[in-house]
């Protein structure tokens, strides 16, 4: 466990032997306030950390502690009130709106708690959604989307509508959509929140696999059993990063003591 302070991350060792490798994600003094000046909510307070390429991090904390807020800041979705987010060295909030959208399109993948599959599109079309704004042969789009569906094991359901498949299958389609542009960073908000144990474990194994393949994965979760698949657990409380825990990435083995006090 490493307690963090306000020092610039460059001076802050992560404790990893390969810490000289440039980080994939770097949060620098991140703060986020919501609401009008007279009714401010401080959702995040001065959060610093860095994640290496291929790292699989879980963000944990009680409800309202700022997990989703942190994820949206890391995902280039909403600008922090203070601080910076660097992804692969790019200061994402220094980018203009269009460039930032392009950055999300090309570099980031999102998996949402409610999956957010379009009910009027079949799974294949849902997976093709991020390709809709890319200049690409429609054959190529199909091939890529089928590829992504195959990777999560639901390519046989390509022509089904979301409400014609199970929750676990919807989740995987949502993951396929996040993967279709081959992102370097995958961000997931409670990916197992709506799944049973068995499906949850499948999804976790998939995320771990992706991380092992070099993708940086950040996942918000409530569940300790999900978090043990991650190599790193960031604990939030009341908008502050209160603990940064590294675990040996051995999801097959029973791990104890993952939870911070």
């Amino acid at each position, binding site marked *: 466990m490493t307690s963090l302070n306000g020092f610039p991350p460059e001076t802050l060792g992560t404790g990893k032997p390969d810490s000289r490798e440039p980080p994939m994600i770097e949060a620098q003094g991140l703060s986020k306030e919501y609401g009008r000046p007279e009714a401010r909510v401080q959702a995040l307070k001065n959060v610093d950390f860095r994640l290496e390429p291929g790292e699989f991090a879980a963000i944990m904390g009680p409800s309202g502690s700022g997990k989703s807020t942190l994820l949206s800041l890391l995902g280039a979705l909403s600008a922090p009130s203070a601080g910076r987010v660097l992804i692969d060295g790019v200061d994402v909030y220094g980018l203009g709106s*269009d460039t930032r*959208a*392009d950055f999300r399109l090309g570099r980031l993948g*999102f998996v949402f708690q409610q999956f*957010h599959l379009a*009910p*009027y599109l079949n799974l294949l*079309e849902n997976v093709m959604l991020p390709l809709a704004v890319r200049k690409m042969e429609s054959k190529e789009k199909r091939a890529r989307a089928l590829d992504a569906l195959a990777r999560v094991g639901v390519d046989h359901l390509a022509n089904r509508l979301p409400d014609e498949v199970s929750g676990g299958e919807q989740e995987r389609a949502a993951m396929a*959509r996040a993967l279709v542009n081959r992102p370097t960073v995958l961000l997931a908000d409670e990916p197992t929140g709506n799944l049973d144990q068995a499906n949850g474990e499948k999804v976790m194994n998939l995320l771990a696999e992706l991380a092992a393949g070099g993708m940086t994965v950040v996942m918000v979760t409530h569940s300790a059993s999900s978090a043990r698949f991650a190599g790193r657990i960031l604990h939030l409380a009341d908008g502050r990063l209160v603990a940064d825990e590294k675990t040996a990435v051995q999801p097959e083995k029973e791990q104890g003591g993952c939870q911070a006090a």
Partner: protein
Amino acid sequence: MGLWLMVMRSLSRRKAKAVFIILGLTVGVAAMAGLSVLSDALTTQVNQQLEKYGANILITPKSKGLSLVYEGMNLGGFSYETAPLYEKDLGSLKTIKNSGNIAAVGPMLLGTVRVKDTDAPLAGVDFIAMDYLRPWWQVTGRLPARGEVLAGDQAARVLDLKLGDRMDLGGQTLTVAGVLAPTGSPDDQLLFADRPMVETLLNQPGRLSMVEVAALCHGCPVEEMVAQIEAAWPGASVMAIQSVVKGRMHALSLFKRFSWGAGVLVTVVGGLVVLVTMMASVRERSREIGLWRAIGFRRSHVVRLVLMESLVLSLAAGLLGLGLGLGGAWLLMPLLVDGHGGHLTLNPGVALFSLALSLVMGQLAGIHPALAAARMDPSEALRSL
């Protein structure tokens, strides 16, 4: 998959809502197209009446004083203060420039005769021409041949004439071959007979009291024809009978203007409805739009998606409205246009205009929701329910 497919899929999933969104526009286009079709049909009908039915040019002798003639019919005793018209001059009608527009010529000789000790007006006419000039005549019995008369409704009553009655007229015995149903015109007062016989009876060979001319007048210049006839036939006073037609035309042009106004107004209101409903639908879909932004759609992509949706909707509204307008006109046609209804023709200009107006209104109405959608927070997609 591209943006168009997204739009089409999304709309096909929300058909009921889509119909609701376009209702106003559809009604507007339907009103424009339907009313235009109806007013066109009415205009065509009036034009056909002009062409086919009734006289619209009247030739009378040049009079020195005021004559007691109303719509060509002598109302009182007939006097010869003026030089009469001559049958031989009828040929001059064929010489005018617009002679091709003349559909029928009805010469008439009027005089009074004594029947059953009463003075009665007698008109010598060409019954073949009357067929054209008085299509509204309803004859009980039949049109008279030589030696027969046709009695106007009032004349028959006053003179107590019935079908088949015989009467003495200037030394000849004539049979009543037909009686006219009331027309509400001076025809009711008259006895009609074949003109050559009336010439003999009145001892006015080769003379005419007046000539009715039916001009084919769909767009033909009646006023010019009047001038042409006046020039070709000295001694004739020529005038156009247009009051009735002009009145109908005026009413029609009012109706046309009204239907345009109503159609445009409804379409504009329909555009507002589109604005409001699309605004609501965009707000409802804030999560979906947030998702689009989150996965990397630019603001301009979102704007495009919403505008494409309103384009598809307003195109559908336009086409549906044209169909409904035509259908409605087809249903209403028998009520408004007498006879066998006339034919339904949609002016392509009108169709294009109403379609274009629908599209323009749809796009205008889409701008505000599109911009609102583009401003939506992409992190909305992360908000849990």
